[in-house]
């Protein structure tokens, strides 16, 4: 059964002068899947995400969202189309509360962002949805806290909640578990697993436990190029992938056998 991909990349390339950060990456992400992008440091994963989201303009190639070519669209336009990213280093509104952070995304999504006279406090639709999202990622009791006062793990969670506030159809998570403790990572994994299938999730991650516990499809990048895309089992078994990570050394400990 063939369904149209949620996201298609066709020859996406980013050159900085003679530096080829991302070179001709093509791949498809099926709707509703949890698709991970892995690769050694410097593989170009975060740059790829920035190109997909539109934070960086591509040198060449196309990005197609649900059959629509969004390559020419700036980042904010792609976000309104449902393609939303989170940031590797939490990018929040530190002087606002957690609920206000999420509300910024929700209010735009609900079309209330131009409202100038009615106080936010009275806009129950926005606040309820924001609190709902905070609760779904486990921050219900911190909704009134300033984002600047949240712990690192809490900020990573809020980071995702803000993105969810836009009701995305394709969610790009950029190293969401970076800096999280084991317990926080486990909670985070469950949160992603609980996300509705209506949202297609793509994530860049270094934590391979998390990746193999979540992902249904895995793309491996190396030196800016697409190395392979396949099921977690195929990727684990691939010699090419293991060589990319560690050269030709013994890599039997690299990919744990059972992480789910």
């Amino acid at each position: 059964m063939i369904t149209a991909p949620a996201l298609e990349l066709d020859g996406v390339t980013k050159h900085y002068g003679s530096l080829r950060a991302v070179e001709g990456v093509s791949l498809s992400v099926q709707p509703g899947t949890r698709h991970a992008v892995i690769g050694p440091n410097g593989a170009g994963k975060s740059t790829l995400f920035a190109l997909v989201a539109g934070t960086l303009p591509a040198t060449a190639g196309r990005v197609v969202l649900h059959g629509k070519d969004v390559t020419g669209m700036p980042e904010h336009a792609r976000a309104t189309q449902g393609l939303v990213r989170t940031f590797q280093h939490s990018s929040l509104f530190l002087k606002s509360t957690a609920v206000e952070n999420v509300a910024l995304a929700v209010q735009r999504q609900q079309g209330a962002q131009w409202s100038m006279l009615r106080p936010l406090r009275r806009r129950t639709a926005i606040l309820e949805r924001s609190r709902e999202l905070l609760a779904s990622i486990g921050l219900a009791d911190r909704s009134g806290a300033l984002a600047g006062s949240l712990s690192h793990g809490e900020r990573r969670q809020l980071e995702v909640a803000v993105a969810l506030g836009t009701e995305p159809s394709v969610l790009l998570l950029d190293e969401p578990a970076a800096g999280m403790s084991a317990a926080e990572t486990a909670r985070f994994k469950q949160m992603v697993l609980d996300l509705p299938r209506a949202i297609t999730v793509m994530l860049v991650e270094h934590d391979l436990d998390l990746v193999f516990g979540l992902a249904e499809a895995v793309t491996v990048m190396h030196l800016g190029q697409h190395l392979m895309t396949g099921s977690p089992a195929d990727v684990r078994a691939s010699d090419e992938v293991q060589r990319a990570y560690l050269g030709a050394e013994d890599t039997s400990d690299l990919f744990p056998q059972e992480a789910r």
Partner: protein
Amino acid sequence: MRGRIGYIVALLALLSVPWVMGPYAVATVSKILVFAVLAMSVNLLTGVSGLPTLGQSAYFGVGAYAGALTAIHLTDLGPAQVVIAALAGAVAAALTGPVAVRARGVPFLMITLAIGEIAYSAAGRLDSVTHGTDGLSGIPPVVAAPGLAPTVNEGLVFYYVLAVFLVLFGAVALLLRSPFGLTLRGLRDNEARLKAVGYHTTAYALVGYVIAGAIAGAAGSLWASAQRFVAPGDLGFEVAALALLAVIVGGVGSMWGACLGAAVVIVARDYIGANLSGHGPLLLGVLFVAAVYLLPRGISGGLRQWRRPARKQEVAA
């Protein structure tokens, strides 16, 4: 709650001004209120949206001339003059804003500075409209509401200015608590993230800029009504710099701080400066330097530190 009491006390104090002060002092407080409105417009851009500006004097001037010309040729009804002046300020901001709003930070500051200077020289040159450097005089006294007599008495002028000030202060407070206000603060705090969640940030910056222009224009109309004279000096660089100083002294981001800062600046220039045999600018310069070194977060920031133990986060006004 402590904030509420502060507002009530301030309101009562203001209402009693014409009863406890002489005419010169009352006129000065009127000036302070007008300047406070201008400072609020500067704060809306600088403190709330993160767009530091030295050009609001341009829209203040547009509003002053628009209000004055309306008074001379159209109607002496105050509220009508204020509305027309605010519209004029908004239109001027809409025409000049797009160039400024593509920039951020220091380039934005520079562009607004240029806008202010150009408005100043335009005011001096467009003799047919503004009477050039002679200034626009013969502005009839304002009629505060239909049916009332023209306000000539300083006390009545003060109440008129106070009424408009309160309306504008309330409107700005509402704006800040609204979703759009949250958007402007988002623009200041993390524009990149705002874009990433779908906001075309330049559009919001422009709307904020136009609103600030309208507020500055309204302030200009009040100035014309209070002074009964408008000249290019009223929209020069010094005015823009004073307004910025007021915001810095009061605490960037805080509206009541901006109003308090306006009071400090006007009193310093007009009262203390006058006593220093006209070396007002010198005192102002010293104030700027002192404020930057000694009051890094302005008066409101200093007070917040002091009150911190008991306070809970609230949406700032």
